[in-house]
């Protein structure tokens, strides 16, 4: 069956062809919204939806899109999908949509999405395009969630808003021993450095990934 034959479409972007750590795409949003784990997860889901559905639509239309205006067609499709995500967030998770603010809208400009449309969906059948979209979005999401996990844990001492390290004001948990939150983790430079460390670990495990 197709799923097993093409399973590398999903597994590759998760590991050795990761859109963030290997192709270095979508860095902007990875830096901007990963200060909290919850925002990272929602962003990952939003991109999963947009890229999965978008890839299928583009793939279905691939033979009727005139190549001269294909970028515009892609933009319209991705914009429509992003508006759907944005409205759903505003309706059901208003606070979160405030946190993500413009970055939901900026999914439109996420290089991963246009990249997959251009590189894959325009030349492949819907099912394969769907798998590719899901795989790449998952690869993006995994990195986002890893970065978000460490930034929220070390920067705020919480995970998904739960005070896993104790209360920093009441001085309970580890704070009683003089531990303090690392405010640097909440700033964008630390997101970049965390990302760098992930890239470092990944490439030292698989030397074939090292470029010159």
């Amino acid at each position: 069956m197709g799923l097993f034959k093409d399973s590398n479409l999903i597994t590759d972007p998760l590991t050795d062809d990761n859109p963030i750590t290997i192709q270095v795409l979508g860095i902007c949003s990875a830096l901007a919204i990963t200060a909290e784990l919850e925002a990272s997860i929602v962003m990952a889901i939003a991109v999963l939806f947009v890229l999965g559905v978008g890839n299928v639509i583009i793939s279905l239309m691939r033979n009727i899109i005139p190549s001269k205006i294909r970028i515009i067609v892609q933009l319209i499709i991705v914009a429509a999908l992003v508006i759907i995500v944005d409205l759903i967030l505003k309706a059901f998770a208003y606070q979160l949509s405030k946190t993500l603010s413009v970055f939901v809208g900026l999914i439109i400009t996420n290089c991963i999405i246009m990249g997959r449309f251009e590189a894959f969906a325009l030349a492949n059948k819907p099912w394969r395009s769907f798998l590719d979209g899901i795989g790449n979005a998952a690869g993006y999401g995994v990195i986002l969630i890893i970065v978000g996990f460490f930034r929220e844990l070390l920067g705020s001492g919480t995970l998904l808003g739960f005070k896993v390290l104790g209360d920093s004001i009441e001085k309970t948990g580890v704070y009683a021993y003089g531990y303090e939150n690392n405010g640097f983790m909440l700033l964008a430079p630390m997101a970049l450095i965390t990302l760098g460390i992930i890239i470092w670990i990944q490439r030292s495990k698989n030397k074939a990934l090292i470029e010159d």
Partner: protein
Amino acid sequence: MGLKSNLHNFKEKNKDKKWLPAFSAIHTFLFLPNETTHNGTHIKAADDLKRTMNIVIMAMVPCLIFGMLNAGYQHHLAFGDIQHVTEGFFNSQFWTMDNFMVGFWKVIPLVIVSYGVGLAIEILFAIKNSHEVEEGYLVTGMLVPLIVPIDTPLWMLAVAVAFGVVIGKEVFGGTGMNILNPALTIRAFLFFAYPTWMSGDKVWVTGAVERDQMIAAGEKLDAISGETILGSLAQNKGAGYEVMDMFYGIIPGSVGETSTLLIVLAALFLIFTKIGSWRIMLSSVIGALVMGLIFNAVASSGWITESSKFYGLMNTEFWHHLLIGGFAFGTVFMATDPVTASQTNKGKWIYGFLIGFISIMIRVFNPAYPEGVMLAILLMNVFAPTIDHYVVQGNVKRRLKRLKVKIA
């Protein structure tokens, strides 16, 4: 057989062992190993990397000892045990054993943590990449305790040192390959990660934070405030110290950076031994003075009102900027770091000038973080290769032009 050859034989015997770099690091700490190079042309010079590093450390030792005394003095002064010093540099109230011991027990743990964590990471990387431990951390390890507040928690320092050594240096390939000064990377990390421990009026006097906690717990005690001069100037409260106090360094501040007098002596020593670049030091001072003069002119021409939040620092006499904060220390010990500074002579002038210029600018325009020299040096570290590139290209162009004139 002497100790030296014994150690050398031991090393020869254990050549293949993985832990050898750890041993070599310690065994060659103060004297040269019995090793000869095998090929190529060599230049014989008296100053190898290790000797260079040791000279810089020697220049820092007076600052370290003074820092201990000052820590104790500020502590006793704030707690009301002694009176304010009025008799100049060599006065009996400052140079007491008691002051020294209070500071000693606060500063030595900082030094131990700094060296312990830093060298452990260096050795780890040396073993993993199977090269010798490089001497780079010797100076960094000594700089770090001198540029942090006296009450910095040791675990924070350890985290920051680990960050600074790994991200600031090892990822770029170790000693000599780093873009940013590792000591300043460590301080910048502390500064952004734990701002409450790096600024404000509690952290500069040992015991003030504890006193605050006791008051919070309900004990009836006076709160202790020991603000740095920059901190109080940034709040338009005036300097509060005599100019000579600033020069001698009998003021609150990071451990070893308060005494401009000792730093000037160290600078002369470094210039005399040709370790530190006088071009960078001089041009930084010029840059700071120029920026200070510009701000003085702005303040005196009445462009800003006295209620402006920039007024306090803008109106500070331009040459006072050299005495307060970490400017002198940063200029002498950190801006001159041979790895991260500009390499060309003309580049050094530009690099140094901009460090001084930008330091004072950050001081004035960023009252929340009143010390600008750290950020200025880090910024210019990033630009140093670019400056060098244009200086070299300029030189190439000029010579080409001269060549053309001759041919014509």
